[in-house]
């Protein structure tokens, strides 16, 4: 799987390269600034890009802007955005085109290597990987509202993991229960929130996020 990496701190960039190569990814280019990132993304059209939000030369949201620009040129180009802080505002901008293949995680999450690599693969496959912090913000916002009040605590937990973009199998193993139990929970959740049931994982995630109003 071909990856482009954008990270301006050499230490972290080398760490990411080593980590991804250890898991069988091929790092086709690693850049350290916004303009090079945009060029690399449109030139290589990688299977997935791992991008830091803040990059030179402006040290603002250069990486995010380059990723969004690249996705306008190459629709659906899978991008996993990393940052020291997560903002619902940025999540909304990333997810707004509704074509999937988006990840948005805190840099800390890299320390859980298994989960991180799983997220990269999920994004590469056109799925979603949304940071638990963003999901928590979404859930607090709607917590006082009727439909969410009707969910059991377990169902709310499952809803959160769904919003992060995880599959039933992944949710089941995270909560130490069977796939079947999770299937029951998700059906209940979709019924209570009045969402159309979909077998397609990706569409399910996007429906949940749309409901939560990213």
């Amino acid at each position, binding site marked *: 799987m071909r990856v482009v990496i954008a990270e301006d701190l050499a230490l972290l960039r080398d760490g990411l390269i080593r980590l991804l190569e250890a898991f069988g990814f091929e790092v086709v280019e690693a850049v350290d600034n916004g303009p090079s990132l945009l060029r690399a993304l449109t030139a290589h059209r990688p299977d997935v890009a791992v991008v830091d*939000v803040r990059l030179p030369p402006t*040290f603002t949201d250069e990486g995010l802007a380059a990723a969004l620009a690249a996705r306008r040129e190459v629709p659906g180009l899978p991008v996993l955005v990393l940052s020291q802080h997560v903002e619902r505002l940025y999540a909304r901008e990333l997810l707004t085109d509704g074509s999937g293949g988006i990840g948005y995680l805190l840099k800390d999450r890299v320390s859980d290597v298994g989960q991180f690599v799983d997220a990269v693969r999920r994004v590469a496959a056109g799925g979603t990987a949304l940071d638990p912090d963003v999901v928590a913000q979404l859930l607090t916002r709607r917590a006082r509202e009727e439909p969410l009040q009707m969910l059991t605590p377990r169902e709310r937990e499952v809803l959160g993991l769904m919003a992060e973009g995880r599959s039933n199998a992944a949710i089941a193993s995270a909560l130490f229960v069977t796939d079947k139990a999770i299937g029951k929970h998700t059906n209940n959740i979709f019924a209570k929130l009045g969402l159309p049931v979909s077998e397609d994982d990706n569409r399910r995630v996007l429906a949940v996020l749309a409901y939560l109003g990213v």
Partner: protein
Amino acid sequence: MVGLAPLPRAPGPPQNGGVTEFLAKTVRRAWTVGVRGLVQAVLSQAACIPLFVVTVVSIALLPVGAGLFLLPAAVLATRALADRQRAWAAEWSGVDVPSPYRPLPPAGSPFRRVAAMLRDPATWRDLLWTLLNVPVGLLLGLLPAALVVYGVEGVAVAPWIGHVATFGWGPFWMLDDWGIVGSVGSIALGALLVVLGAALGEGILKGHALFNRSLLAPTRGALAARVRELTATRADAVDASAAELRRIERDLHDGAQARLVALSMHIGLAEELMKRDPDAARGLLAEARAASGQALTELRDLVRGIHPPVLAERGLDGGVRALALTLPIPVDVRIGLRGRTDAPVESAAYFAVAEMLANVVKHSGARRAWVQIEQDPDRLVLLVGDDGAGGADPAQGGGMRGIERRLAAFDGTMAVTSPPGGPTVVTMELPCASSSPRTSPSSGTG
């Protein structure tokens, strides 16, 4: 003259252009001086008299209440005229007249606004100026204008119609008695007056500017009061930043720093145990990772409190929008900015809005809130409102008082209207020099 390089000349015939140039210059000067003098003379009557009368009447009407609404308008109109005079003094005569006004609380509570106006000595000096300028402005404005107009009449009008109609006054106007001599004399004398007007006019107008300065510039007392005020707000700002640094130090010391120590201990232990007890080592490493996660979370919260990253990345606009999205109630955000403001102002404005929204969530019980931010060329206006219970009082200390102090360091002001039962609206104003539409602060890393 010998040995001096010739001075650069304006384009035109170099030698015999001297007379024409002098004439053109005199006419231009006479025209400018005449018009300016006339404007001053007219304003001294048409503007100063009504302003003085209306201001005095509104002060007299204060006890009845009507003055509360009339006075701010009269005072602001007077200030507008005075500001015009200050600009003219600099532009026409090179006389620098600084503006003496103290910052006014934002519109909202008419009582506080009127009280602030009445407490400002500059208001009273303005009033005195509107009175004294009635004769002074008339005299000093009319003098250059009259010299020019009278002179022009002597050159261009009187000699040519003098034999047709007889004017009643002036040395020119008995021209039919003097014949050709009279006409020539009239032209000569008229020309002299125009030249005189052109030559003396600027001086006379400068005299008027100096008179204006004597009343419209800040007095020593006002400057001393300003120094006291700045000393106080500076002390507040220094105290606040020292307290902030202490808080940051404590948070780092007890938080992230301690966790990093624990982290390295765990890793060291795991290293020791690697061979003897791999399971225990794995457990320690998992704990180490958890500790690093907590340390990062604490650092992130700390950074947010110092300078939110999204504010650095997106400015006030994006910062406030991102903030609104994190709150548990819907917040309607409307922002009209002209590019980015200076970083300190941006930060003060952000934290002011953040504090007010935090108050809304904590105390008001509101179901909705809204934020509106507008930018004039020289100030930022921030409004935060909610549909909650009302009864907010900045005098009770706490966050609002802190924000008021923080704004004061920028000459910013705050007004709260919060009747019992709501709604609450907090209006904050921050003076800001509108900087270039800059999008790239040059510090910080990812």
